[in-house]
């Protein structure tokens, strides 16, 4: 069991190392074998682990080695497997494998095929270490590792400078969150002298009462890290731009890795977060606000990938809402179902884009239903799940979140209302996408059909996006669960009906034409709002004005090294004194005599003054 557990992250890591070092000299089939095979093997290993788990009594820990120890503070490099990690392991390796398989066709013609798979494997390895880390520091290693890999992959096509800008943005924005998270770790080290997650949670619950200021500070700092990595308000701006990378990478970032890290972090530290009720409320509020805001932004986008990007931000908002209202299991459940349908949607979008000669603007698409049947069905099922239509996986998890938000005393009705409005908009934009791209008149001809390595993952993910809702997660031992889920009568029916209303609206507006909204969208307010939402609520511009430009101007202004002015001043005065003094050495005898006599007179006067009492 220990060996299997160690093998899970080591397989992709070893493959990444080999590809990085020797990939350029390998044949394409060998690269594919290593790149896809290592993840496939890792997925099988996880399966074996899950099967063996049936007999296991508790969490399994593998101590690799002691990372470092200074004085009485030490950190181990150790892996720990429990149910929560196992769910993530299954998602990461399962979905990850499908994405790798898909990539082997999608990226088949790229010059840097081996570099692509090296980064992709490294990405998966980092994410696996993140969820297996027994200490906050190993988690942080994975955490920074996925940040690095996202940077490498978003900027994969480095010859276009815009991709590089998007990659740097992703790294730097998430890094701002990471710096806050690091401060949180320093606080924990100072308080508890350990970074072992179990020990931290135990020590914190023993020494901190709920609402303790230090607990609030620690949780707020750590949550800021999650905000950055999971693209929540106000650090969400990097994710839409992250679309610059190859489409399978987007699928990987949005479904299996990276953005769900924040969810994992909060769920993993639930014992710590319950000590900070204020932070929990902030998590719910941030989550629900992000869900609504991103849904509106998604509605206004034209780029098929940006629509999906905003939908990810929005869905992550739901997960944080769940965590914030302590519906831990609902949040984790939604993470999993979301991984299924979001991977499906991105891979299907990739297929559409590839078959249309890299066209991404949905205004230039239409009528592809019969031309691209596999992507069409994938999109239909994926969008249904995203919209949370009943009988899909998305419904099962999102409905749970809505109902649990409703249960919260006091703020429940507000949280539920905002979440419900966002849910309706979600249904609206996701079916807008389906209707615009696949129905109506044909605008761009598809050149070819996706091959089996792209089609097979799509079909499997279609199945998962439907049946995934029936998976029951074994979370009882790792997360505090609510006793039961009482039916709420009316509110349950209303919650379930909302997405259907959204889909109907989408049909009437975008396909049937019964509802004419041009009056609304063409009005000045409508256009302004659409523009504003298209630009993601103008936050990029805000940051640009407030942070990026001032920083760049400052750097520009100081470039010549202000301290050199001080040095120049000292140098200048030395030169001036030197000139004055050397000017006095004029060689004119008359002046020397004059100065000499003046000096004598002054000295004599002084002596006389002193002598007289």
């Amino acid at each position, binding site marked *: 069991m220990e060996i299997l557990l160690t093998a899970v992250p080591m397989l992709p890591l070893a493959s990444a190392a080999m590809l990085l070092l020797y990939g350029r000299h390998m044949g394409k089939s060998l690269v594919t074998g290593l790149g896809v095979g290592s993840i496939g093997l890792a997925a099988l290993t996880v399966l074996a682990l899950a099967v063996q788990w049936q007999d296991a009594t508790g969490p399994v820990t593998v101590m690799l080695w002691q*990372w470092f120890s200074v004085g009485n503070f030490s950190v181990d490099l150790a892996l720990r497997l429990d149910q929560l990690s196992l769910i993530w392991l299954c998602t990461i390796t399962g979905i990850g494998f499908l994405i790798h398989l898909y990539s082997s066709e999608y990226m088949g013609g790229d010059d840097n095929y081996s570099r692509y798979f090296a980064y992709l494997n490294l990405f998966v390895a980092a994410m696996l270490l993140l969820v297996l880390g027994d200490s906050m520091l190993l988690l942080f290693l994975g955490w920074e590792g996925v940040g690095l890999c996202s940077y490498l992959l978003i900027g994969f096509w480095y010859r276009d400078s815009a991709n*590089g800008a998007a990659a*740097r943005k992703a*790294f730097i924005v998430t*890094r701002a969150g*990471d*710096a*806050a998270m690091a401060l949180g770790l320093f606080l924990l080290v100072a308080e508890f002298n350990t970074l072992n997650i179990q020990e931290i949670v135990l020590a914190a619950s023993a020494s901190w009462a709920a609402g303790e200021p230090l607990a609030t500070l620690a949780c707020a700092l750590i949550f800021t890290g999650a905000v950055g990595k999971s693209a929540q308000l106000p650090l969400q701006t990097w994710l839409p731009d992250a679309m610059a990378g190859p489409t399978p990478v987007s699928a990987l970032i949005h479904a299996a890795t990276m953005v769900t890290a924040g969810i994992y972090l909060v769920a993993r530290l639930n014992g710590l977060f319950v000590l900070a009720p204020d932070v929990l409320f902030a998590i719910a509020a941030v989550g629900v606000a992000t869900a609504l805001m991103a849904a509106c932004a998604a509605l206004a986008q034209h780029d098929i990938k940006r629509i999906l990007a905003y939908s990810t931000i929005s869905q992550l908002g739901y997960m944080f809402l769940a965590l914030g209202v302590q519906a831990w299991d609902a949040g984790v459940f939604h993470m999993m179902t979301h991984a299924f349908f979001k991977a499906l949607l991105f891979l299907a979008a990739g297929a559409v884009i590839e078959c249309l000669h890299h066209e991404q603007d949905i205004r230039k698409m239409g009528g592809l239903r019969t031309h691209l049947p596999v992507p069409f069905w994938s999109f239909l099922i994926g969008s249904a799940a995203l919209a949370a239509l009943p009988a899909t996986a998305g419904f099962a998890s999102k409905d749970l979140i809505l109902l649990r938000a409703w249960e919260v005393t006091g703020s429940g009705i507000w949280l539920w209302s905002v979440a419900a409005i966002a849910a309706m908009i979600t249904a609206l934009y996701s079916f807008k996408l389906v209707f615009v791209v696949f129905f109506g008149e044909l605008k761009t001809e598809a050149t070819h059909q996706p091959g089996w390595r792209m089609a097979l993952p799509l079909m499997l993910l279609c199945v998962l996006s439907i049946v995934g809702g029936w998976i029951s997660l074994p979370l009882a031992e790792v997360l505090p669960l609510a006793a039961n889920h009482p039916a709420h009568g009316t509110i349950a029916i209303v919650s379930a009906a909302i997405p259907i209303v959204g889909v109907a609206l989408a049909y009437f507006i975008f396909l049937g034409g019964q509802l004419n909204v041009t009056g609304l969208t063409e009005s000045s307010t409508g256009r302004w709002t659409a523009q504003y939402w298209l630009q993601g609520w103008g936050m990029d511009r805000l940051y640009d004005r407030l942070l990026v430009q001032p920083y760049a101007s*400052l750097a520009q202004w100081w*470039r010549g090294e202000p301290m050199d002015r001080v040095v120049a001043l000292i140098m200048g005065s030395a030169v001036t004194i030197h000139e004055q003094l050397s000017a006095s050495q004029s060689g004119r005898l008359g002046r020397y005599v004059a100065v000499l006599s003046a000096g004598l007179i002054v000295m004599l006067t002084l002596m006389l003054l002193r002598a007289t009492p």
Partner: protein
Amino acid sequence: MSLLIVLLLAGGLVAWLSERFGEEMPARVSVATLLLTGAALWPLATEVLTTGPDVDGWLAYESRTWIPRFGIQFILAMDGMSLLLVGLTLLLGIVAVIASWTEIKARRGFFQANLLWTLAGTVGVFLAMDLFLFFLFWEVMLVPMYLLIAIWGHEARAPAATKFFIFTQASGLLMLLGILTTAVAYANQTGEWSFAYMDWLQSPLTGELANWVFWGFVLAFLVKLPAFPVHSWLPDAHTQAPTAGSVILAGVLLKTGAYGLLRFGVALFPENAKEWSSLLLIVGVVGILYGAVLAYGQRDFKRLVAYSSISHMGFILLGVFAWNGLSWSGAVLQMVAHGLSTAALFMIAGALQERLHTRALADMGGLWKAMPRMGAMAMFFVIASVGLPGLGNFIAEFLVLAGLWQSSPVLCAFAAIGLVTGAVYALWMLQQAFHGPLGEQHVGLQDFNTRDMTALGLLAIGLLGLGLYPQPALDLIAPSLDALAIKVGG
């Protein structure tokens, strides 16, 4: 131990004379000398590490009378910290020689001689435990470095070399005054002359005088480190120095400042150091942020790396004055990790200049396509310098900041901004040089050869080792830092 220094000094002479036997001869002699010195260090290291420290806590100790009239002795002593730093010096020495292999075309023999003499001075600085001798080595280290910049530097070498010399010399003078004052005070107090570190530890200076002497020492070290606002010699010196000079300057010479702060600044004047620690911590934070902003503003590859050094040295200053075991360990690790990563970046900068005949970032772009090996190496060391976990710089900065949080959470928060700004300039540099479209004129550039890759590979392995298993290094320096903690109450 004196053998180490003698070998380097003699090797320099041989390298100088060997020029007549072939163009590559001086560089070969240098590598041989460094390997030989390394070989001399090896048995010493294994022996002292197995026997452990003696009663005074030194792993190795040797002393000779030198100028008995003033109690000046020739004392060399080694503890774990000096051993680590001497090792770093020799390793980076080899890297520097490799970096200069094809770059230096004029007066190769004298070049290698100066290189080795600077290294001899540096090793002396790390080992000398008589303050008079320490000052002598401090100068031995300085003069050949001045010549390296002044003779083999780039277009604006003369002012840069002068600036370097005057900054270091002026601050060194303050240190000399401090040393002499302390010696006189010691003689008045005990009736005997002595410049020995151990003697001074026994009867420390007190009162107002100690405060002045403390600043004399600290200013010299701060200039060397360099810390804001006395750093402005560094960007010029680094930019103008030949690659090997930059490698040695950034890799080891700056570390003598950091070493001096810990060994002399803190240990000899604990009360004054503690009293001024808040101010010096603020100086450290300002240095981190200031260096990062200026690095981002640079248009010259080498100058950018130079400013990044100022930023990273801020962490060392924080580590020294955060005043606990965590932060001290972090500071020493940062000396090594920064030495390795920056040496590599300067080597890449030098390779770029050699191939493109420019250091301007605007003239680069897309070079990954032309030189994938160099691009990959640049990526690796940029990532290291950004402080990604798994590499040495992360452990160092983590320990420094974790220690700093315990003495000042607010300053720690400001210093953590440096984690973000560090990524800003480092990734921007990578973008401008290696990403984006490749210019026509750069097609067909020669990528790194095996010799370059070996040198950089060594540095990369070092950083990976420090990042994944830093314990040997930490264990090596722990006794020195524990002793310091007992002495000054860390």
